[in-house]
């Protein structure tokens, strides 16, 4: 059981080690001398007046949703790529095409509704 999962464990372990090393090294080696001006937000070299929370317009939210929707679609295609050389690959291929087609319908709907151009 462990044998088949070994590569995944090694992969995740390496990821954590390298990631952790960089952050720790950065914190340990880099000299850190915090001062008040350094902690203030950077606004092109001027004292910032951003004294309250920044309120987003609704159109930003729309763009974010559309991005998530169509980007995650690609994530689903990766595991399918691994299965392609299995016996009945024609079935898998048709499966993917159907999946992409359904999302295409969604895309056309969004496009016709005008959610893509910025308002």
């Amino acid at each position: 059981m462990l044998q088949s999962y070994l590569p995944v464990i090694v992969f995740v372990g390496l990821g954590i080690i390298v990631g952790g090393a960089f952050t720790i090294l950065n914190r340990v080696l880099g000299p850190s001398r915090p001062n008040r001006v350094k902690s203030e937000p950077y606004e092109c070299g001027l004292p910032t007046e951003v004294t309250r929370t920044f309120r987003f317009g609704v159109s930003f939210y729309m763009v974010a949703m559309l991005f998530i929707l169509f980007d995650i679609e690609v994530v689903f295609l990766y595991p399918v790529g691994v299965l392609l050389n299995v016996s009945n690959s024609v079935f898998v291929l048709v499966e993917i095409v159907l999946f992409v087609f359904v999302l295409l319908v969604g895309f056309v709907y969004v496009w016709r509704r005008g959610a893509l151009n910025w308002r």
Partner: protein
Amino acid sequence: MDVERTKLRGLSPLDQPRSPEELRIRQLRARDMLRGDIDDADLDEYVESRVMTTTLERAQNWARGNSMFPATFGLACCAIEMMSMVSARYDTARFGAEVFRASPRQADMLILSGRVSIKMVPVIRRIYDQMLEPKWVLSMGACSSSGGMFANYAVVQGADKFLPVDIHIPGCPPRPEALIYGILKLQRKIFGEPDLGWRERYKAYGTEEDERPWKSGPLSVQRVGAAPSDGIVESHGSPPSDAELHAPISHPELSGHEAHDAWEEAADDERVTTSRPPGDRRGDA
């Protein structure tokens, strides 16, 4: 053999005292290694000298020095020459100073290129404060180094009035090569073996910073020879006696063809007139 050495000494126009680590000699040796001319004894010594004695501090300084990210801070005309420093002909990518970071958070070096107006001082000071810690400041051009030709109400007479400046680069605007030379000097300063400026080498003799009584006659130069490891020259005590001054600086004997190559190199450099500091009689037979 002595003749070659004096010829060799005439190579670098700056005429700093020759030391084995001299760039020119290192290049020749590297070339020979590639040609396979250096055999076992020299080869081990050569390879060993290339591997840095890695105390953590030196390794860090080596990494920091070789990849300095300048913050894009174009004030005025020097900014145009700073931009051309990145262009294909001058290309600071060779020295790791090519990536211009827009935000001070990701920049290591602030190149003050241009005249500093009184309205701009709070902005520059704020950006310097917001830069993360191993940071250096290069003041490029006469205007940011000393107010330049604008001695009037609107320009701050020198950036070191409100910023700790590491390197002042003269010129109006300085050529891109001058800017790159300034960056190289900063790199050596970061590596811990700073090239000694005239203040350290001549003890600021003859200026108001030097308490020694002004006496005309030959300049007494503090022998620099093998610079002490931490690059800090001991505070100037009594000026060195003449005998000490005349002692030729010792050189490990160069291997056969190296000296020949160097000599051959120096032959066609004959027209390189060595601009020696006044009264410097080092190495004269």
